[in-house]
């Protein structure tokens, strides 16, 4: 499982896509995207799972056949009986590794090899060492950790034989709640939602009273409006010892995104060329990289070091 490093990965899809869209997205990823690892599964809302369940085995098989490692991700927040059963079922998988996104998953997974997802709070060496002792092999760090802390964690990870993964593309998870904000926006509740989140393939944009786009609702999750883009930071992350670079799925052409990031990762594209290519893509929001630089998360530091926002 432990890769040679410099692996490009695809995080779990955070949104509620139509079942056929979901299936076809992953079929194309399997066939065309230069990815080493694909994380599958529902991390936001247990109510969505039956929607794509029928396609899950076929997608898993297609990804495996294409030489991609499949890892099954668990829910970020586990409270109801349905949530708990889902986490228990996913953790029961033995063919592939499972990625834990809350401590009810680590309850099931401790003692055997597994991965730790970015919704678990791994902020420091002590936490990393404890989880490594329980079987964690790969840890995707929380999005708000600045580069200085990432470097310290990479050093600790090396002595524990754990790989470190960092999200480098896509809207960033900023908060989870028990309340569904998609349902609330439509005057419904989580129990009566009628799956209204299906209308927003990249989430529902919330704007301030000045009509400035600010946040994005995705069920119980709140995301950044901006798309994280750490293409220009990848050389520094490589030097620090990060092994895996995670793209978070969106409705844009993720094969193209993966191809561009693959280019910078293997060194055939410069950071500037990568940035230029990504800026040509028809995304619905600007890029951000603030957390990485220890600044407000929505902010953007250009390659020259100039700060915008």
């Amino acid at each position, binding site marked *: 499982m432990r890769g040679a490093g410099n692996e490009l990965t695809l995080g779990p899809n955070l949104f509620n896509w139509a079942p056929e869209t979901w299936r076809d997205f992953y079929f194309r990823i399997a066939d065309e995207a230069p990815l080493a690892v694909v994380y599958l599964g529902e991390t936001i809302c247990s109510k969505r799972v039956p929607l794509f369940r029928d396609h899950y085995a076929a997608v898993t098989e297609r990804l495996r056949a294409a030489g991609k490692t499949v890892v099954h991700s668990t829910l*970020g*927040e*586990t*409270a109801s009986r349905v*949530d*708990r059963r889902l*986490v228990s079922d996913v953790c029961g998988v033995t063919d592939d590794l499972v990625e834990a996104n*809350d*401590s*009810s998953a680590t*309850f099931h997974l*401790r003692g055997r090899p597994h991965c730790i997802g970015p919704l678990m*709070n*791994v*902020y*420091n*060496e*002590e*936490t*990393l060492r404890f*989880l490594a002792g329980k079987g964690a092999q790969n840890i995707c760090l*929380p999005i*708000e*950790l600045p580069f*200085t*802390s990432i470097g*310290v*964690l990479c050093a*600790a990870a090396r002595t524990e034989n754990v790989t470190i993964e960092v999200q480098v593309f896509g809207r*960033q998870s*900023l*908060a*989870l*709640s*028990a*309340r569904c*904000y998609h*349902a609330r*926006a439509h005057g419904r*509740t989580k*129990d009566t939602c009628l799956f209204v989140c299906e209308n927003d393939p990249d989430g*529902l*944009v*919330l*704007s*301030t*009273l*000045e*009509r*400035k786009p*600010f*946040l994005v*609702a995705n069920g119980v999750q*709140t995301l950044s409006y901006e798309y994280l883009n750490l293409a220009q930071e990848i050389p520094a992350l490589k030097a620090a010892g990060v092994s895996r670079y995670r793209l978070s799925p969106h409705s844009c052409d993720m094969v193209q995104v993966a191809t561009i990031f693959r280019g910078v990762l293997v060194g055939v594209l410069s950071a500037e060329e990568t940035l230029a290519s990504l800026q040509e893509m028809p995304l619905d929001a600007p890029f951000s990289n*603030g957390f990485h630089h220890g*600044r*407000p*998360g*929505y*902010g953007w530091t250009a390659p020259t070091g100039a700060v915008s926002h």
Partner: protein
Amino acid sequence: MNDHAAPRRPELVCPAGTPASLRTAVDAGADAVYCGLQNATNARNFPGLNFTPDELRRSVDYAHTRRAKVLLAVNTFPPAGQFQLWKDAIGIAASVGADAIIVADIGVACYAAREYPQLRLHLSVQAGASSPEAIRFYCEEFDVRRVVLPRILTVAEIADIHRQIPCEIEAFVFGNIGMMAEGRCSLTNYVTGVSTNMDGVCSPAAAVRYDEEADGTLTTRLGSFVIDRYGCGENGGYPTICKGRYSCAAQPEPYYAFEEPRSLNLSALLPDLMRAGVTALKIEGRQRSRAYVKSVVAAFRRAVDDIMAGRQAALTDLIALTEGHKETQGAFQSKSWR
């Protein structure tokens, strides 16, 4: 695992932002007070709040003399490379004789359990442990003795959890209600560059701005983002992102996308919570004044004593102390809140 037939007398756990507030809470009838040190090791790291080690020592003496307990919150997440500050905080808690420390981070819990096995561990709400499996993970790995439950569960779900865990349950009953799962919210950091998890600050005052227009309209901002706007004479709240007004494609008119600014008040549900197996009732508000602490603690002291004596509890005056004079039972009463 726990017998939950008859309600036990619950412990009333009260906020102490300063040594003076701690004495006030103890004198008003608190069974336990919780507080933090003057640094990033606790989740209310505000200017002018919290305790020096020496103040903590004297406060523990004051409380113990009056049979009250002191719980030290060490409930933030140390960023890599800065763990020593959290080790020091745990060492101070042990040396001054704190009755327990309240922790959230796995590394902090692991360190405390390893180095200070006699020190009682409570799991902070910041750990976001909302299922029996999550809670049992912390109990089994670190011998956690009490969990502070996230404010996202119904009373029926709390009762269900109680039957499946080997530790005590502490639940919030009054005060500010955060909309996001605690310990998993980076909204403040996204806007201000200061992290709730790592720095212990939500909506820092240094980033707050109030702009008053000529017509009396008041606009509240956090960093460069407008959080809310109030007409002349309207009761405006402190700007926190999860209580702001926003618009979206489904709601073109600005609305409270997450929650309205109002406070949690579960006083009417106290008997239900006690029957559900909650053995510690927590009042939020380390940032509040001594007068506030005195009123709320005294009111809940009377209410708990009334319920234990089989009398009807009277708590109508608490509404005056809630945010914007508006209150909610949040997630606790029914699932329709979600």
